[in-house]
């Protein structure tokens, strides 16, 4: 795979746009900070220190990075075929539900490791299944995946709440803090002081590599790209768009479900209402900002995770609202979309000259 001049050009073009976008974003956020009466440089410093300042903080960042990146990997499949899998949030939730179900079966049992492994498989299956529902609604019912996904997100949330307050409630008190905590043998093993799960990290790295390989080297990856480019031409190459749409949803849901499993087994050790923590929705933004690139997405996810974790410092240290991190994230996405639109418009202007009526 030689680096052609075309690739080098594209790389520089993309970097230039990325830097431009970052400048725009930081300019925008700095203005907001000044309006809020806060010192911008101090704010950025504290975000930085609050996320990367110590090993403990870094482990928090990685704990946020893991589910975010897993969801992003899954979304790369659905975006590739042109689907807007907004339902990723619900897929994380259902993955968590299925995982919790299996773990509850294993409570007080003798082979916790077995149950942990099976619960992960169940989580993947749960997410994939939930995604398949939206997929079938699209292929058989013609319902746009945004509506199906959004609707199913609400249903998943409702299911979780019902489980937490109903069949799976804690003895005596049904509470928003979730189900009963699992016994330690059903926790994901972690490295002592930093409470970071090596397994979660490994699974995520494996997910990235698998996704990169699949999209680049397998027929499935090529077919997803082809159908995503032009559904109508699919018949020319004997491709069945519906089949591959469902496959893409299975992948997306599967990865999201795995994220849900890790949330349950590695972070909260129980099922809580906010088990998905908006990582699904955030992953959509991550993938879009990363321009649907499998290697850039984890980097962008890391950036967002740092932002999330670091800005927790702001209320304490600078008496700023922690929602500032949300502002920065939102601004970044807006800037990225604006750059994308500007990029599209400039290529379209080039094409217009040579168009034929």
């Amino acid at each position, binding site marked *: 795979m030689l680096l052609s001049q075309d690739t080098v050009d594209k790389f520089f073009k993309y970097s230039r746009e990325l830097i431009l976008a970052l400048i725009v974003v930081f300019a925008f956020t700095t203005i907001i900070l000044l309006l809020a009466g806060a010192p911008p440089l101090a704010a950025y410093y504290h975000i930085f220190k609050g996320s990367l300042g110590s090993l403990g903080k870094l482990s928090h960042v990685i704990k946020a990075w893991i589910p975010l990146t897993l969801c992003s990997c899954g979304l790369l499949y659905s975006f590739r075929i042109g689907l807007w899998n907004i339902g990723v949030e619900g897929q994380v939730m259902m993955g968590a539900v299925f995982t919790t179900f299996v773990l509850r079966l294993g409570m007080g049992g003798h082979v916790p490791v077995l149950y942990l492994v099976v619960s992960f498989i169940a989580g993947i299956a749960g997410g994939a299944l939930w995604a398949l529902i939206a997929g079938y609604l699209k292929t058989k019912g013609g319902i746009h995946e945004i509506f199906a996904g959004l609707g199913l997100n609400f249903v998943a949330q409702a299911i979780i709440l019902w489980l937490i307050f109903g069949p799976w409630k804690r003895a005596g008190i049904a509470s928003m803090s979730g189900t009963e905590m699992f016994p330690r043998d059903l926790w994901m093993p972690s490295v002592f002081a930093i409470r970071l799960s090596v397994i979660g990290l490994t699974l995520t790295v494996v997910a990235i590599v698998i996704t990169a390989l699949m999209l680049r080297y397998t027929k499935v990856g*090529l077919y997803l790209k*082809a159908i995503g480019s*032009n559904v*109508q*031409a699919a018949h020319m*190459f004997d491709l069945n768009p519906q089949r591959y749409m469902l496959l893409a949803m299975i992948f997306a849901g599967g990865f999201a479900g795995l994220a849900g499993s890790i949330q349950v087994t590695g972070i909260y050790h129980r099922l809580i209402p906010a088990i998905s923590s908006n990582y699904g929705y955030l992953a959509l933004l991550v993938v879009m900002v990363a321009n649907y690139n499998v290697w850039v997405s984890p980097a962008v996810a890391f950036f967002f995770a740092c932002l999330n974790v670091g800005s927790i410092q702001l209320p304490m240290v600078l008496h700023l609202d922690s929602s500032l991190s949300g502002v920065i994230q939102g601004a970044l996405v807006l800037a990225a979309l604006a750059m994308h639109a500007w990029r599209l418009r400039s290529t379209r202007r080039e094409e217009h000259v040579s168009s034929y009526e």
Partner: protein
Amino acid sequence: MWLEVKDIHKYYGSKKANNGITVTIKPGTIHGLLGENGAGKSTLMKIISGYIRKTSGTILINGSVEDYETPADAARLGIGMLYQEPLDYPPLSVLENFMVGQTSGIKDNKNVFRETFVSLVDRFNFTLHPDDTVRKLTIGERQQLEVLRLLSLGIDVLILDEPTTGITSEQKESLFQALRQLVSDGKSVILVSHKLQDAEALCDTVTVLRDGVVTGSREHPYDANVLLGMMFGIPPVPPSRSAVEYGTTVLSMKHVSGSGGRTGLSDCTVDIREGEMVGLAGLEGSGQGVFLRLACGIAQPSTGIIDLFEREVQGQDHHAFKEAGVVFLPASRLEEGLMPGLNITEHFALLDREKGFLVRWQEAVQAAQSKIKKFRVMGVPESTVESLSGGNQQRLLLSLLSKESTLLLLEQPTRGLDMESSHWIWQHLHKYCLRRTCVVFSSTDLEEIFMVADRILVFFDGRIVKDVRKEETDISELTRAIAGKV
């Protein structure tokens, strides 16, 4: 209003769609504009109506030069165009559509408009009710609405682009009456059409375009032969080809009808045999596209029986047709045939049907290189298909065809290609015929069809009006058939 266009040129890159056109439209006349597809009629009308900008030339309205940029500006100057597909708003009511663009502020004066509307409807004897939803109207009624709307905007010159396609004969009569009434009120009408009989029945003057220039102008009454001569020119002598033996019937259609395009396809009965090269003649949108899509299973017929090798296949999806070796190449290459964003190598990789999980990139690159060379595509394996010119996209599409097809259905295969490329492609396709594949292609170039095909089917208004071997006919007979005069 006097409308003069002087020396209008319109270039698309090197292609001259309008090459120095001068026409005068007198007030109070119906002026017809005739010509085959690609002659430049639509381009000229779009320039006059403000839809596109001319490259050079002048437009004079009542003697003074006017330079306008948008259809809205043109409407303010009194020029309005009725498109083949009326540009209306289906969810809104007839009255609301009538009012579009004429209301401002908060109060909408619906009642005033209602009175105006009703009086116009009476005057022209149309059958429109102000509160009906436009979605439920027929094309003819939507046309009537659009005519009234343009009138109420104060149009003096009304341009109609192929208005009689897809409307009933009563509606046609209604429209013609309305046009005559408009003209007697002092307005002018420009009628763009390929239907000779409409032009003969209605127009006071007719201007004929061919290849971007005016080939002649005549006043009523007309000699059809003269007009046809101006439209189509003199045919060249066809070269000889080696003889092909025809075999068994591959495709058989019995009383097949289907919808699609402007005219759909009505009551089509035809048999195509192995080795035949069949040309589908006729003006674009007369049913050839529907025929091709029905024959490959992309579209389903509403009635009739389609047989492939004597097995009924109508109603089955295109996979069944594909298994029998039917291949279809659409005219809109990027929209229906190729995948923008993917490069040539990836397209060849898509063709690989070997068992396996992984893409065989090496083989794909090699296949791409060899086909690029063989079909002389100007590009490299890494070129994205949208970066190729139209002609090269066509070559690429042809290179993606497999050798073992039984029936090739090609929609305008040489569209946008230069002579040399076209010749090469016809030779390439002839080899398919020698291998007992039948080739059915549509084209808007009658000379090309006559040169290449063994058998010619002429389509007019959704029907096959002529089915004849090349030896038994000549170009003038075919041109008459294309214009509807069988």
